[in-house]
């Protein structure tokens, strides 16, 4: 078969074709096609219940779609065996909505979980690498010794991001990374994302509601609407006649964000 998993020249990192997701009779995704290009930030937007998180979970294998094909680095994820799946898992990092840090471990230990499992690093090097990741996500060194319960919401997200980056993945999945953050923290997070994308060459798949975030970070936007998807840049989507998209970008908040 063509499209070997290690082909670093394939410009498409994630290729979704004819994806169907449904819960009972309720169809969430109705034959969706979507590409995520290597090195881009793709933001997924849509109203509540349009299956943004379900899409993310389908790609990373936490949700089994009813039909369709999802290829990550050319590797079909639906009927993959455990070992190949692991190979893929090590090439992506996921930031869950509230960080999903392991609550019984310190931030440093959280970051070291994948390092301990998948590398033979010495404890000293793991400490250093954890400190590097902390500084990459803009957390102070002292935060490493804290327990997740002692962190603020914004710090929890950054710590979760540091864990997602532990193995230097190629794709980063973000589930509403700026929700629940104050505007200043949110824009700092956007800036951080841009920095990381530039320095680590990340491909980012981001579910978001945050219009500022869309404007500042996203290269392209995928809008989930009635089980279908529409993709384009902000400039393209603003001209889309669909009433929901019009309302989304032309509502008071949308205009304020886009004109800023």
């Amino acid at each position, binding site marked *: *078969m063509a499209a*070997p*998993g*290690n082909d670093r020249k394939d410009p498409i990192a994630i290729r979704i074709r004819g994806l169907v997701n449904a819960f009972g009779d309720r169809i969430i995704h109705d034959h969706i096609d979507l590409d995520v290009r290597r090195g881009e930030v793709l933001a997924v937007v849509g109203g509540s219940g349009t299956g943004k998180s379900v899409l993310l979970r389908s790609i990373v294998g936490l949700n089994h779609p009813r039909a369709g094909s999802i290829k990550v*680095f*050319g*590797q079909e994820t639906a009927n993959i065996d455990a*070992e*190949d799946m*692991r*190979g*893929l898992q*090590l090439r992506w990092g996921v930031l869950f909505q509230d960080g999903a840090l*392991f*609550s*019984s471990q310190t931030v*440093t230990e959280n970051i070291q979980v994948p*390092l301990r499992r*998948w*590398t*033979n*690093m*010495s404890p*000293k*090097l793991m*400490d*250093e*690498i954890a*400190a*590097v*990741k902390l*500084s*990459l996500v803009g957390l102070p*060194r002292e935060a*490493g010794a804290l*327990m*997740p*319960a002692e962190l603020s919401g914004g710090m929890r997200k950054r710590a979760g991001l540091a864990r997602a*980056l532990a*193995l*230097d993945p190629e794709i980063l999945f973000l589930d509403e990374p700026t929700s629940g953050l104050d505007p200043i923290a949110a824009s700092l997070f956007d800036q951080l994302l841009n*920095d*990381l994308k*530039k*320095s*680590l060459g990340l491909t980012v798949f981001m579910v978001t509601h945050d219009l500022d975030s869309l404007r500042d970070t996203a290269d392209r936007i995928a809008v989930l609407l009635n089980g279908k998807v529409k993709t384009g840049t902000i400039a393209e989507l603003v001209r889309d006649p669909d009433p929901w998209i019009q309302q989304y970008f032309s509502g008071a908040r949308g205009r304020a964000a886009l004109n800023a």
Partner: protein
Amino acid sequence: MRNIAPPLSAEVPATLRTERRGNVVRIIAGGDWVTSETARLDHETQNIATSGAGEAEIDGSAITSLDSAGMWLLLRMKYALESNRVRVPRFALPERFAPLLSAVEREGRIEPLVRKRPPQSLQHFLERIGKGTMHALRQGYDMVGFLGRVTVETTEAILEPRRELPFPALVHQIEETGLTALPIVGLLAFLIGVVIAYQGADQLKKIAAGAEIYTINLLGVSILRELGVLITAIIVAGRSGSAFTAQIGTMRVNEEIDAMQTLGLNTTELLVVTRVLGLVIALPFLTLFADIVGVVGGMLMCDLDLGITIPVFIREFKDAVTLNTFLVGMIKAPVFAFIIGIVGCFEGLRVERNAASVGLLTTRAVVEAIFLVIVFDAGFSILFSKLGI
């Protein structure tokens, strides 16, 4: 189809070599400097021979792939050289890694974390004993406070007519803690009855022929007075006491209890009183059930094994036990229920907002409840013997 390399491997193995020209060391790095290679490179970068060198060049222009872990190793090498008074005027990397370099370099040197090892001295040992004791005492003090609050709330809930008890919740608790426990309590009580009758008769036979008729006394007194209520209490502590801690603890983790407080609801009344009261009502009935089933178990054993027929058993049983024997057992049931309920709810309310806490305190609640039940049982024994009952 195996088209993905085994988890985490580099396409081009990372290389590191040194060249020496006078007092200048050239450190040449190449290949993929990525996370999977760091364990090996960690060692190699620390063992490069630079003794006597006054100047070093780090040349990474042959590096094909670089991630933040690899970048850190390169930088660490540079820092180590500099702190050995070796100048590093040249630090060359392909242009595309410049953003990564500035991102990792921004934080500068990282001092190794000092892991504190607990001191193992006698003083430390004594300190731990002291801390543990103070902790236990404080917890005892807190629990007495909680006991007082629950007692007041429970009494008020029963006595004050304008404060209505959430009746459906109470019935639900009785069903959860009482009705659904019937099968397991019944089965265990039955087996205990069988075992006591069998083992008791075996020993009594050794005293004199015909002495096995006293098996009935042994059975009646031990089950009605002690075992019926004790077995029931232990099962209920494991079943319902733990459930109380886990339920209330999970509510704490979800901030539900904080939400109740902000809504002006009385959490003790809503969460604790119904549970404790439900258990106080349910446990005596469970005990009665355990008493009956236990005695029936013994009776069947006597009939099958000792030839004491059921009518004979019933006649002898009437003589062997008095109403007091039964009441002594029954009076303990609500007390034990109160202990189990209070401990379960108390530990549940102490849960902190992390996943480990719920499990830890649930276990602790069960152990404490069983411990206190047995301690109180011993207390009752002493009390009744002083009173001559």
